[in-house]
């Protein structure tokens, strides 16, 4: 595939992957004791904030959160806002610290999930009804652990994806590398 073909193939392929991931997470990926599901979206958004510019991070965070909200039971707006804010927070972290490699990415994803959970809990508390603080800690802890593991496993795939579709890292594109 040449560069133009790759550019046109990337978005439909991404949507297909997202849908397959969503079908899997609501049917097979459900965790016991009401701990939620094994989801890939936190790792994706953490990677976007890790590798893309501020502008792209914001736009992609809105779009991907919209996709992810289809299988989330909470009010769509609150879920999207919490995901976008968590992406921007991750962007701030990844800009402030020199993150590199798999382990750093897993830690960044953990921070993403923690910030997203805190934001969502506050928003739910204010605009709807949130679970108890105890349950929040249980959910947050389990989700941080699971998403950090997913991020650690999937990191090479993200890098390969970027290489195949010829995405230039943020620093290089701005001539900072």
């Amino acid at each position, binding site marked *: 595939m040449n560069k133009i073909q790759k550019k046109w193939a990337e978005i439909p392929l991404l949507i297909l992957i997202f*849908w*397959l991931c*969503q*079908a*899997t*997470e*609501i*049917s*097979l*990926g*459900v*965790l*016991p*004791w*009401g*701990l*939620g*599901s094994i*989801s890939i979206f936190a790792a994706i958004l953490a990677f976007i904030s890790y590798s893309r510019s*501020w*502008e792209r991070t*914001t736009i992609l965070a809105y779009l991907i959160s*919209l*996709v*992810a909200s*289809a*299988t*989330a*039971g*909470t*009010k*769509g*707006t*609150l*879920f*999207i*806002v919490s995901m*976008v*804010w968590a992406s*921007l927070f991750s962007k701030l972290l990844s800009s402030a610290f020199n993150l590199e490699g798999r382990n750093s990415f897993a830690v960044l994803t953990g921070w993403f999930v923690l910030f997203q959970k805190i934001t*969502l*809990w506050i*928003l*739910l508390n204010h*605009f*709807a*009804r*949130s*679970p*108890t603080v105890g*349950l*929040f800690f249980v*959910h947050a802890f*389990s*989700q941080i652990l699971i998403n950090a593991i997913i991020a650690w496993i999937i990191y090479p795939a993200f890098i390969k994806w970027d290489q195949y579709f010829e995405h230039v890292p943020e620093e290089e594109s701005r001539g900072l590398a």
Partner: protein
Amino acid sequence: MIVIVVPLFQRFWRNNRALILKLALVLSPALALMIMKAPPVPKLHLYDRTQSYFVHPIAEGLHNARRGSGVVFDRYIHLVDVQVENEKLKTENEKLLAEILTLQEVQVENQRLKSALSMPILSKTTFVTGQILGQDSNPESLGFFINVGSNNGIKPRMPVISNNGIVGTVTRVYPNSSMFLALQDPSHAVDGTIRRSRARFIVQGDGKPLVGHLKYLDRAEDVRVGDTVITSGLDGVFPKGLKVGTIVKVQRPKSGITQTAEVRASADLGQIEEVMVITSEPNDFIEADNPVDPLASGPSEDSGTRVQ
């Protein structure tokens, strides 16, 4: 004045453009939050509807495959002990045959009593049965996807029940699937009453998979551990008299005008595979709750019209 302000503003913009843009990006979710007020009955985006055609059938297939593989695995494991078990079962069979005869008598009696009571709750309701195809991905909510949607007559806010009692309320409806929020979800509430003492309150979900709590329960009301909680029918969603759960804990604070209690839902979310969505309008429940002559409405065996 303008001659001074405009160049100042231009200089400020030139010097701080990146910072202003980043600030705008960070604040954009807050703006979105203010603009996008969620309607009481959520409307589906075009994207939601499109993805439901793809995601939900695959999820249903995967869900069934998981159940199927579980059954095959269980059967294989059981084969190992099947001979020993067979001998044991033969002796038990003799005992059970004797018990069946007694139970048949009880069943006949039970049917007779049911007919006498005439079960007005579901006598005029229609419902659609649906199979659970998945659970929502967010642990902050307890949402479940089922394989019936607007093409089967499902609408938002319709009550979802199982043979053990109420399960939740439909929140999102896709053409061939829908999502309901479980009774235990923190944003779910039902108007309930104690069957024994008729005390009224709101049953509010706690986010825990099994338990909810009672809100606005008058301190003077007689509520005890073990009491059965049923729907009052006054919320305009659930018909009157459906089982919600059982009281497991009562807390009466030293001061205040209310008391609190915990209720364990009768429908266990972990065990449910099939649910029924009541498609009748709330007005039908009111008519059904007040039959002219309860004994004239006939036996309850054929109560409820199974659409699917």
